[in-house]
């Protein structure tokens, strides 16, 4: 087992630089999730750790060893691909055994490890089938099994759930969490789905355009996002943003009451309020108001879509709101510690 250190890593394709000096420390046994929109460089970073992508600058170390020039199979990492990338012409057993055969592992040792992994993943019955005869979920298990048998120091997952349907995704997510619990090894997991990131990670790394935007525990990112991008990316439904006006009485976003007292911000203030933190209230104490446009019923809660006077929209998440009509004006406030303030220009948290 081993931790991982990434120092000033850059990646360029010809003239185009796609990673701009990434620094990261991953501790032994940690579950780290890289999250970001497509094209942010999260997969590239993972592939550089795997050794499938050359490192243009900087250093990646696994344990105490710099692995920049080490072949993928010698880095002590195993990867689970988005498309599973199973060998279609081999049985499930041979798919899992293939890597061990390459390093001349004794036959009975191979057999022991494959059967053990199959047991963990409940795929013992399928060992003699080819991948073609398996469902998506089963293929994903085989792909994970292929990684397990190699007993790597670091597991790499490249969007492993994105080809599964919603129900299976939830279930497999849970199984990956259990697997981490059971094996206790370092896992790095790439996804664009912030729900996966929140539920699985010990530590989330938010990436945008080849740069790290913020690193932290899931709840840290949720409670104190360092900039507008992280604030908008983490949390579902996404945080509402309001351009604020400031006077000596405080910061206003259209309501009668100030959100907070006046603050200093060179580029103006943007207020962020999460839909789940909006509290219905009287007009006199409201930060913000809007006309009800649409209600989405989700069983245990409902999402209210509201339109403000300047025709911008925002969302409020309520447990239950007694028969409100379309077009009715609603007023909201929020608890003091649930208010996020950002500099509109620099997009940084105030």
């Amino acid at each position, binding site marked *: 087992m081993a931790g991982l250190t990434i120092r000033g890593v850059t990646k360029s394709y010809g003239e185009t630089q796609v990673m701009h000096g990434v620094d990261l420390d991953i501790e032994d046994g940690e579950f780290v999730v890289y999250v970001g929109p497509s094209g942010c460089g999260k997969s590239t970073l993972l592939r550089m750790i795997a050794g499938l992508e050359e490192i243009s600058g900087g250093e990646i170390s696994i344990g105490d060893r710099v692995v920049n020039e080490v072949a*993928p*199979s*010698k880095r002590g990492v195993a990867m689970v*691909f988005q498309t599973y990338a199973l*060998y279609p*012409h081999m049985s499930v057993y041979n798919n899992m055994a*293939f*890597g061990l055969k*390459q390093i001349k592992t004794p036959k009975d040792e191979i057999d022991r490890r494959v059967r053990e992994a199959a047991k963990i993943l409940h795929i013992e019955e399928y060992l003699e089938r080819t991948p073609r005869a398996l469902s998506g979920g089963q293929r994903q298990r085989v792909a994970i099994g*292929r990684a397990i048998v190699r007993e790597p120091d670091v597991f790499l997952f490249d969007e492993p759930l994105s080809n599964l349907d919603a129900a299976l995704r939830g279930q497999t997510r849970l199984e990956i969490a259990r697997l981490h619990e059971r094996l206790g090894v370092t896992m790095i997991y790439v996804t664009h789905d912030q729900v996966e990131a929140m539920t699985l990670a010990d530590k989330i790394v938010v990436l945008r355009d080849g740069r790290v935007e913020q690193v932290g525990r899931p709840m840290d990112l949720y409670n104190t996002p360092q900039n507008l991008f992280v604030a908008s990316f983490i949390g579902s439904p996404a945080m509402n943003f309001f351009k604020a006006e400031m006077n000596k009485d405080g910061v206003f976003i259209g309501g009668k009451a100030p959100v907070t007292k006046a603050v200093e911000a060179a580029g103006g203030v943007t207020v962020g309020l999460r839909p789940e933190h909006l509290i219905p209230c009287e007009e006199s104490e409201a930060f913000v108001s809007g006309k009800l446009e649409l209600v989405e019923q989700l069983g245990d809660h409902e999402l209210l879509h509201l339109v403000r006077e300047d025709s911008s929209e925002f969302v409020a998440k309520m447990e239950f709101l007694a028969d409100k009509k379309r077009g009715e004006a609603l007023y909201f406030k929020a608890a003091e510690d649930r208010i996020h303030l950002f500099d509109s220009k620099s997009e940084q948290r105030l």
Partner: protein
Amino acid sequence: MAVVSQNTTFSKVFWPAVAWSVAIIFFFPIFWMVFTSFKTDADAVKPEFLFFFTPTLENYTNMTENYDYWRFAINSVITATFATIFALVVGVPAAYAMAFNPSRATKDVLMWMLSTKMLPAAAVLYPMTFLTKNFLDIYDTHFLIIVVLCLINLPIVIWMLFTYFKEIPKEIIEAGKMDGVDTWGEIKDILIPLAWGGVASTALLCFIFCWNEAYWTVRLTTTEAATLSKLIEGNRAPEGLFFGRLSAVSTAAVGPIVVLGWFCQKQLVQGLTFGAVK
């Protein structure tokens, strides 16, 4: 509704009729060739004997006894087989490199390879004959014919293999890298088994092209390495008096490759239409 059903009846009759007519027109020369091969040379030139004649095997016995058919046939087998093997030995790694490690030059290299097929063969006839005869001293050898057949088919072999390899998901090769296989292992354990249909149809097509090649095999051989194309050429009389004999030789030359194609038809069609991994 009536219009619809009329249309269906019409197309049920019309299109098959067109298809059959086209097929018959294309097949007629072959049919005529096989027919003629069972006629005597004298009967062959008489129009009234087109369908009604006394069949004879004379042309065939004559061919094997007097024209050494088997030596030409064996030469054809040797040159086509080895040319195909060498084309694959060079073509598989080349196509692998271009499919999985493409560079900026890959497209240009592929186009350049194809462009060699645009060169009229006749343009290099003199240098080829001169160099092989007077300079390298390999004129009329199996080696020369194998090299020439291999080289003229290599562009097509590489193009075909490239297309098949392209269809294999890159991740599978990368998974192999993670599992610790070397380049040779990637080709042997992953690529070839996955693209087997494509490799087989490429080999088959290459073999057929080699077998049928006539321009160079006729011009760069005399006796030693002469193939069936040369045998046909040798029996061609400008006066047209030996149609029976010529037809027998031609039928015997075409026969093996038609039989081979027949047996591999499924493989060939699948390989050429569906691609390798589906």
